[in-house]
């Protein structure tokens, strides 16, 4: 019994160390929202619904304003949907040219994302962990999605 508990502890420690190692260089992408958004977490399906324009509503009921960090867009959508930028752009071409929805606003750098998110209750964006600032609430690190396989860009 004690041996089993010990094994679990070692496993947990290893896991924690692994996550720490991933986060250490601060390059991990982190979803961020306004401190008054009413959100403390967000599932991957919920993030897909918002960023892919299916339903622009935060789980707290506020209208969502998704923001892309242009230089990290390819990495973000690979993590979110396992799709390339060409696939994501194809998806948006269908929605844009049938007047259904517009793609997320494009921010050119982390400072712009943080500025938008800190000033709008419904805004949701992503920045690298090392760029986080006090004005926004970090929700979830996207490294946790790396090995999950749920994604969609259905029409």
């Amino acid at each position, binding site marked *: 019994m004690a041996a089993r508990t010990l094994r679990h502890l070692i496993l947990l420690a290893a896991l924690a160390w692994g996550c720490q190692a991933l986060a250490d260089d601060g390059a991990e992408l982190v979803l961020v929202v306004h401190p008054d958004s009413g959100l403390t977490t967000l599932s991957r*399906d919920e993030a897909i619904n918002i960023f892919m324009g299916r*339903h622009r509503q935060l789980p707290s009921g506020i209208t969502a304003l998704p923001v892309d960090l242009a230089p990290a867009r390819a990495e973000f959508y690979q993590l979110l949907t396992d799709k390339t930028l060409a696939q994501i752009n194809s998806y948006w071409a269908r929605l844009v040219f049938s007047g259904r929805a517009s793609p997320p606003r494009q921010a050119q750098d982390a400072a712009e994302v943080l500025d938008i998110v800190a000033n709008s209750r419904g805004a949701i964006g992503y920045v690298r962990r090392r760029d986080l600032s006090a004005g926004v609430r970090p929700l979830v690190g996207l490294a946790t999605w790396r090995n999950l396989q*749920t994604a*969609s860009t259905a029409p």
Partner: protein
Amino acid sequence: MTRYRQGWTTSTTPKGAILNATTLIRHLLPILLLAAGPVLGEATGQWPALSVRGFGTLGLAHNSNDQAGFIRDVTQPRGPKGDTRWDLDSRLGLQLDLDIGNNLSATVQGISRYNHAGNFDPELAWGFVKFSPDDSLDLRAGRLGWDIYMLADSRDVGYSYLWARPPVEYYGPLQFSKINGADLVLRHSLGNGVLWGKLFAGQATGKLSLDARNSVDVAGTDLAGGHINYETGPWLARLGYTRLDMEVDINGPVAPLMDLLAQFPEVFEAISPEDTYHLYSVGLVFDEGPLQAQLMLGYQKSEPPGVPDANQGYVSVAYRMGQWTPFATASFANALSSARTPELPPGLPLPAGIGDSFSANTTPDQTTLSLGARYDLWENIALKVQYDHVNVRRDGRGYMLWREQDSGWDGRAGVFTATLDFVF
């Protein structure tokens, strides 16, 4: 008689002074583009109020069979027949989106494509005002795409799909692509996914082609319909229904013949496509990472006695490998009863075989197997190649998806297509 001159045109004839939508687009677009330049250029920090986007395709289609012309859809008057044509799949679209504020926006889209008249005169594809009081409701009014099937209202945007062209058996026979009317979208988060539905109603606008010389104006056709969708994870399912009351106006050499036959009500009733149609559809999409699969089915219930009920559908599977995405598609359309040649009154100066051509024109019976691949050259440019092997059974050889058929045609066609698709 005094001729007058209007300020914005150099024409001195009253006819030339008529400003139609086409002229408007042609004259306004360059101006709007110039005006938009600075707005787009300084779009950092501010939400851009006006955005200009476009899409286009350069395509080459070759039909190895020289006994029937292959077309993309029923608006096209001619298609490759033992030769190669660039006009079948080539087109250019330009869209302006204006964010007015107060949850209002406006969109205008002009498109230039090979049309019923055999030219590329630009037309207004979309032009609507949209009101979104909250994230769960959209209301639009104006000129709208006909959203009857999944992808139907974006079938001109080649970059948005994998194929060189959408399966012709499913999207080719669509009577029109746009309506003047209104639609409403409602969304609701349910489980991990989103349940949403659309209702639309309006009047059709546009012209189809019967052949190189005869066209059909469908303006005046009333339609109403809707669809309900559920999207969750990699799945999207959709059920749709549209009812339309067809009204057609035939232009061209065949028009006097129709006028003549209209004097015999029972004959006219047997050949006229004017009446109610019910169009049912089911769509299922699975799209996860590199794998994409689609299944679409449609059923057309036709009330005109001379038009048979019909089924159509396709299944398509694709798998991305690096920049390449090979795909395979099987599609079909078939009438549920065979073509019935109407009895025409004797003694009229009618061309030989005209009765057969009336009934054959509305009786599909064909299958296509397609293989192809998309290569993503850049983030907004794709190259595609596709081969279609088409098999048309005897009843379907006079169908409106074919042009200039020779009587000895065996119903086979092999179509090679290469396209360059882009968005900007």
